[in-house]
């Protein structure tokens, strides 16, 4: 079932409207303060209320365009992202005194978009979907799709072209007026990039992010016509008219299937006014709903974990989009992730390069190690590369470079190092792990099927890698935290579920829960080791917090604790250790 997107009421930002808001507030205060009122006053009050409501209503239509104007379009580019994240912020990292302090004091910065129960409530960035209520196979496969993709029955028209090396792309319109952007596979890897777009976008959607609709479209040249006004920025960098001859020249490098059809990933242009990208740090001050610095958003930090699962390493500002949409007449800024051609075993130029997901684009740490080892330290990606016979397509051209050799959830790296990803805490990772573990084998297969890989064994390979990787992430994430869930308090008995046992990573026999009961002053009232997921809080009314450490015999990982806050005999909060 599709969860409803959050509705965000945006405040009018114009000074006039602010003063109006203040007046309205004063008005309400006055009304509340005076009671009971004589009849005349009641009339007056009614009149004033009516005037106030009319005035507020009158400003609403004004407030939307004013807000739309205030939200400026933010731009970036690959090289700007590269410079900012990989050069500038890496260099000025410790000039932020708060960051320097945290580094010296070994403190973590807790995510701020979490509620009392350590979960991320729905927001403009994230909507709880599959983890909240498992989606059916049909819902997973549908993803954010509003339709079946471009309608080729009456042909389609290319409105604009985009050419990048040997990789063309076309903006099209179908006979139903739907606008799409078509992207293709690389010459030597039919199905690779198009399936990555389709599969990864659906995973991100099911997880909880806003993504555009991606569908796989197949067509012949006969079904395509070019609008007279169509232009293209070709490899000369100059805008030119897109002629039939030029179009055929570009499409020459696009691989065709055995029946001579072209296969494309069709991204439906989402509705809304494009406001550019969203930043991975800071926030849009003009958006009153954007209250938390983005590097403190768990939803954003956890992209590193979701990226590691899906092999998506090109998570950067350039692959995001902010869209100003109207929700029941109110302007809302929605934050989208887009462009998933770098997911799974794919990259935008073909199979994923061997160093991707193991190193940042410029990796100072690994480069430093290489310098001082005089080239004799073998990087993990080099070992993996050797194991695969230095062949990017050792499995299949449609799968690309995708396996779990040397996969380590803790060491997964996106192309660019973002503060948000570096600030990921154990609590953030646990949250992401829980969501990933909510996908069953069948769920994964249902989504992989949407990649429409022609060989069933290719689909099975992708699914198997994802299933295996899910479990690797699950084991690691649950081992380094206290993955205790669904707490309940009945008759002074605190019970819970242990996700690591539920998912069979550990057994009950291997598990001990070390419990500290603490009073309001932080004083330890009692401690105990228990072996079952039920803790007797005793008769003391003093118990304020129950702090539980999960200890697994045979595990080398240092587990974090979970603090259950108990107030007035109720569970008032849950805090996983960062």
């Amino acid at each position, binding site marked *: 079932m599709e969860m409803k997107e959050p509705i965000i009421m945006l405040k009018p930002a114009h000074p006039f409207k602010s003063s109006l808001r203040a007046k309205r507030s004063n008005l309400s205060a006055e009304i509340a303060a005076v009671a009971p009122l004589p009849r005349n006053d009641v009339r007056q009050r009614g009149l004033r209320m009516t005037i106030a409501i009319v005035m507020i209503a009158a400003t609403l239509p004004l407030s939307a365009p004013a807000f739309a104007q205030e939200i400026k379009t933010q731009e970036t580019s690959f090289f700007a992202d590269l410079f900012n994240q990989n050069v500038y912020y890496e260099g000025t990292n410790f000039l932020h005194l708060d960051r320097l302090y945290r580094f010296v004091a070994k403190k973590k910065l807790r995510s701020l978009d979490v509620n009392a129960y350590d979960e991320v409530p729905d927001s403009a960035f994230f909507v709880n979907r599959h983890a909240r209520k498992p989606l059916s196979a049909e819902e997973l496969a549908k993803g954010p799709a509003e339709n079946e993709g471009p309608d080729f029955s009456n042909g389609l028209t290319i409105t604009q072209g985009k050419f990048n090396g040997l990789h063309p792309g076309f903006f099209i319109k179908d006979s139903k007026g739907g606008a799409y952007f078509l992207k293709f596979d690389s010459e030597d890897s039919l199905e690779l990039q198009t399936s990555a777009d389709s599969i990864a976008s659906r995973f991100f959607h099911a997880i909880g992010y806003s993504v555009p609709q991606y569908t796989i479209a197949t067509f012949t040249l006969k079904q395509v016509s070019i609008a007279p006004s169509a232009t293209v920025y070709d490899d000369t960098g100059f805008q030119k008219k897109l002629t039939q001859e030029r179009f055929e020249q570009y499409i020459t490098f696009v691989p065709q299937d055995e029946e001579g059809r072209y296969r494309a990933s069709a991204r439906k242009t989402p509705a809304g006014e494009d406001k550019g990208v969203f930043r991975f740090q800071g926030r849009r001050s003009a958006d009153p709903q954007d209250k938390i610095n983005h590097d403190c958003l768990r939803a954003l930090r956890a992209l590193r974990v979701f990226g590691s699962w899906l092999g998506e390493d090109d998570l950067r500002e350039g692959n995001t989009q902010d869209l100003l949409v109207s929700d029941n007449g109110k302007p809302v800024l929605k934050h989208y992730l887009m462009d998933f051609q770098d997911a799974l075993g794919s990259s935008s130029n073909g199979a994923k390069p061997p160093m991707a997901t193991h190193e940042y684009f410029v990796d100072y740490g690994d480069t430093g190690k290489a310098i001082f080892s005089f080239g004799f330290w073998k990087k993990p990606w080099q070992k993996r590369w050797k194991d695969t016979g230095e062949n990017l397509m050792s499995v299949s051209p449609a799968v690309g470079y995708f396996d779990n050799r040397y996969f380590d959830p803790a060491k997964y790296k996106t192309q660019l190092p973002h503060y948000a990803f570096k600030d990921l805490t154990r609590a953030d990772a646990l949250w992401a792990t829980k969501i990933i573990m909510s996908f069953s084998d069948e769920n994964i297969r249902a989504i992989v099927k949407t990649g429409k890989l022609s060989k069933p064994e290719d689909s099975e390979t992708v699914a198997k890698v994802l299933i295996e990787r899910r479990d690797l992430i699950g084991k690691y994430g649950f081992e380094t935290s206290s993955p205790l869930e669904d707490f309940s308090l009945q008759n002074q008995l605190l019970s819970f579920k242990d996700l690591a046992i539920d998912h069979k990573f550990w057994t009950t026999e291997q598990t001990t829960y070390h419990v500290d009961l603490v009073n309001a002053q932080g004083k330890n009232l009692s401690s105990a080791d228990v072996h079952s997921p039920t803790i007797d809080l005793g008769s003391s009314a003093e118990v304020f917090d129950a702090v539980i450490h999960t200890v697994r015999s045979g595990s080398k990982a240092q587990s974090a604790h979970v603090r259950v806050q108990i107030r007035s005999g*109720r569970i008032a909060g849950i805090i996983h250790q960062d």
Partner: protein
Amino acid sequence: MKQKSFLSIIRFTAVLLLASPPLFAQDSSYDKYAPLQSEPKQATLFERSLLHFPEYPFEILRYPVDKSLVYMEKHHVMEKIQWVYDTLGKKGLTPKLNLISLARLDIGAEVDFVRALHQKERFPDLVADSWIHFASHYNFNVGSRLGVERIGGTGFRTQGYFQYETHPQEHFYGIGPHSSRGDGYVYKREETNLQYLLGYKPDVAHSLDFKFGYRNVHIADGRDGSMGRYNSGIFNGSAGIPGLHGDELLVYKTEAKRDTRDQAGNSTTGGLQKFGFSYNQGLYSSNAEFFKYEMELSHYFKLGTPRRVLGIRAYGEHNSETNGHSVPFHQMARLGGYGMSDQMSETLRAYRYNRFTDRSMVVFNVEYRYNLWEYRDWKTDAVVFLDSGQVFKNFDKLKSKNLRESYGVGIRTSLANVVLLSLEMAHGDEGTNYYVKTSTPF
């Protein structure tokens, strides 16, 4: 009344139901996905400004770079530059840009007339090109070449060649291995070369060339505030430096070459073997007459992987005067500096360019190159090197104690094995030198 009582009961029941969880404290179910109850506490804009204050001076630098990069991508600036470069290349004009040092660029262009006249397909073996290079206070070079490669598909080739070059700041420290760096002099060298080549090149790797040429070398006063001037100190007529006023020479040269390197500038495998022998005869008032022997051997070894390469090189040169004539100082073996091309002083990186001059020279270079980072065709390698060499008059003067050593480290970034930037630091007896280059010494 009954109605009122009924309403009161309903109200009471509703209140009781709403208040029941805290009262009974038995069922503690909660909404895990409840919205945020209050605005999270985080640093205010003012606090954040204070905490990030040390970064702000750098932000002034970041902002324009960020905006420029966005502008470049949005307006396809790189594609336009690439297109201009490619289009010029197709029309036979290739712009050239080389970094000689951090503050000095070599700007130039090469014109391929066969391409410019759209005759490349018709005459694929015809060579007709010209070039011009300029680096302020360093070099001006202009030349042309006309010839045919693979005459009738046989591998024989012939070329005519003209070049004029001027070096306004050539340095000279005296002749011999014990010259002093304090005795540095500066002069200007102008050289005009006319040459005819007849050769045989059966394949890409092998060649045997015979060259006949005329060379006019003019020596004049150079300018460098920190150096002694031409015609002063040891650098004057009375000191017996041969060739002080320049020379006109006829050159007869034979050169055999075997080049199996995979990339001339940044090789990972193969090697170069080159042997040259020439007879040089002075014309008119020149007293020069000598034989020049040159030998260069280099090889590149992969150490288990192409990411670790050991490059070794040996170079030897001997100039032997005949019939009581002399070898002009400007044609002698020269040692010191970064190297890079045949016309330059040989590689001894911790010493200055042209630091040692004599009739003979040997130099050995060893470089261990290992990969630090790579992404598709981009690579950054580290290099650890040792150069050792000496100049000497005759072979009986070749002494191991006179060898000058130079060692150092560097980092090189390349794209598709073409070096884009090389940063090197070399240390030796006379101090430390730093290099910023767009090439490798061998």
